[in-house]
């Protein structure tokens, strides 16, 4: 298990939050008319991960180069925490030729073969892909692992159950990460799921399943570390459900009328100020560091946006290139 480095965890969470905050601004900046999701600097739907940083940062701090992640439609925090190049990722989100997929995928289709990172807008379809990656790792005799990430709503898809079954049967080095942010778009779990915790569902497939409460990056780091070490050592798959927090809408433009009083307490539950306070209390973080870490993150994100916006669009002549894998 990697040693716990609190400052690194904090910096990565701040970096991701800064990224999502700037994309939020950019997304709405030039979207006229506001109801046309094709308009503006960033075309298409946008699903941002503010509040869910602890899950990505806690999990990815235990990964190494060559490990794989499949992420869902809300992928930025896992992409950044897993080392996907911020410039190429941002250019993809802006639909530019320098992007990860030459600008043809957009924010829900970030594919980075070098870092074994992919994501998909099709709910739960990263689960079987991760099983395939894990099977490849196992057959090659490496100690790499695959991490499949999706939300608690995705755990009601057939692909989830099929993947858990095969992963357990074949003892694949895969870690199923469920980000439970309480809302499957606008549906609470109590309206969709017969189990109170998806961690319990693991028992039906003969693998360990744990649930991490409180959106606590150190608790995620520890549990993921144990699960990943277990998978590397040939112990097979496991499931980690992380109770996290969606600070913003399901998509940008979501008025969230369905959330009610849940919205009133969001600021108090924001994991980044809470973690900063914890680190300050134990003397691991000063006010000067808070400012400099935020400034460094802002500079990196601004540079990535500049890189994206100064990059060319794909041309009409390229429309039929690279569209089949």
């Amino acid at each position, binding site marked *: 298990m990697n040693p716990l480095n609190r400052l690194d965890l904090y910096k990565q969470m701040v970096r991701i939050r800064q990224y999502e905050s700037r994309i939020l601004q950019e997304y709405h900046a030039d979207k006229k008319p506001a109801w046309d999701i094709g308009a503006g600097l960033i075309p298409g739907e946008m699903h941002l991960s503010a509040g869910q940083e602890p899950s990505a940062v806690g999990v990815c701090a235990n990964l190494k180069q060559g490990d794989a992640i499949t992420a869902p439609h809300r992928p930025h925090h896992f992409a950044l925490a897993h080392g996907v190049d911020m410039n190429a990722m941002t250019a993809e989100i802006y639909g530019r030729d320098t992007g990860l997929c030459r600008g043809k995928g957009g924010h829900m289709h970030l594919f980075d073969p070098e870092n074994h990172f992919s994501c998909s807008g099709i709910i739960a379809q990263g689960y079987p892909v991760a099983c395939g990656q894990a099977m490849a790792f196992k057959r090659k005799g490496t100690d790499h692992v695959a991490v499949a990430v999706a939300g608690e709503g995705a755990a009601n898809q057939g692909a989830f159950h099929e993947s858990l079954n095969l992963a357990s049967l074949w003892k694949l080095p895969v870690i199923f990460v469920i980000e439970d942010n309480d809302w499957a778009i606008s549906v609470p779990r109590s309206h969709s799921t017969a*189990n*109170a915790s998806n961690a319990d569902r693991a028992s039906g497939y003969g693998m360990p399943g*744990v649930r*991490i*409460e409180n959106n606590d990056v*150190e*608790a995620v780091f520890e*549990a993921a570390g144990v699960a990943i070490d277990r998978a590397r050592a040939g112990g097979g798959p*496991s499931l980690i459900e992380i109770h996290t927090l969606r600070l913003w809408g399901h998509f940008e433009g979501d008025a969230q009328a369905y959330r009610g009083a849940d919205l009133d307490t969001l600021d108090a539950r924001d994991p980044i100020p809470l973690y900063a306070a914890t680190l300050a209390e134990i003397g691991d973080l000063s006010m000067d560091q808070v400012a400099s870490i935020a400034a460094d993150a802002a500079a990196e994100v601004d540079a990535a946006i500049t890189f994206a916006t100064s990059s060319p669009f794909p041309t009409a002549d390229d429309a039929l290139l690279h569209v089949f894998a």
Partner: protein
Amino acid sequence: MHDVGVVGIVANPSSARDIRRLVADGAFVTTNDKINMVKRVLTGLHSVGVDRAISMTDLGGISAALADLANGPTSRAWPRVDFVDRDLSQSAADTTAAVEAMVAAGVGAIVVLGGDGTNGVVASACGDVPIASISTGTNNAFPRSAEPTVVGIAAGLVATGLLDADEVAARSKTLTVLSGRHRHRALVDVAITTHDTVASGAVWDSSTVREVFLCFAEPDRIGLSSIGAHLRTVRRADPVGLYLRLGTPAVAAVRVPLGPGLMADVDVAEFAEIPLGSTLTVRTPSGVVAVDGERAFRFGPSDAVTVSLAADGPRAIDVERAMELASARGVLTRTVGRPQQHQISHQQ
């Protein structure tokens, strides 16, 4: 005085989902298992004349399922089930408030489904009301193993007055930890570890443990208390606890089940009884304090940490003793016809 025949039910929806499922072979006690156990408890309660149960509510699906069943079309031999109606925070505060409401409503006993942690929370609010505990955690010493139907019967016998609580529900010991603004109470153990993070909570590696304070130490239990149990058995009713300092030079080495399917060889440098009413100071300069096996808070060299042993815990119903008394006194036995010893005849 309590109302005759009213019993509270506390079922922790979150127990048994912790990291011990990963680091050891911790049990899967799923929500559906817990619902099933509550049903068996209700059946047991009803069988001895309990006519009303008050259940806590939760957002984990237990109380919702219970409400469906209790109000559903299938008639069941259950007490009437009422619910503590309040806003939920999805934290231990829900349990505390529910228990306070049950005590105010005059329950004669409370059945608790959870681990050591859940029992500790109930203990903070139940006052003199006896509790009967069913283990649904991953690593428990306080609740003994028993079939929930039988726990329901035992709790019902106490609540209805068919058994005297003083005979079957002895007062538990507690350990109170004080350090600055931190105040915690344990029903089983307080451990001082070298962790520098509270993180996922559980303590599963004995090499991280420096000092252990125990309310009791029974050799048939798992967890930190089992370390002490193999040096000196301390029963729940004994007027002492146990202090252990781990490490070398060792005065003893013990092999114990520290968790479910998790054996550990532990060096003990020092052990001594703790008299009831005494307060000890933690000697380890810094680390994390764990309460009933869960890491609770960090402390440093400038933080004094004290641990006190007292007999101020909940009255815990001894289910085995309750059922033996019920049997000996024929509480659940109805003589039919003329009592006679049945003779086995051997025919050619």
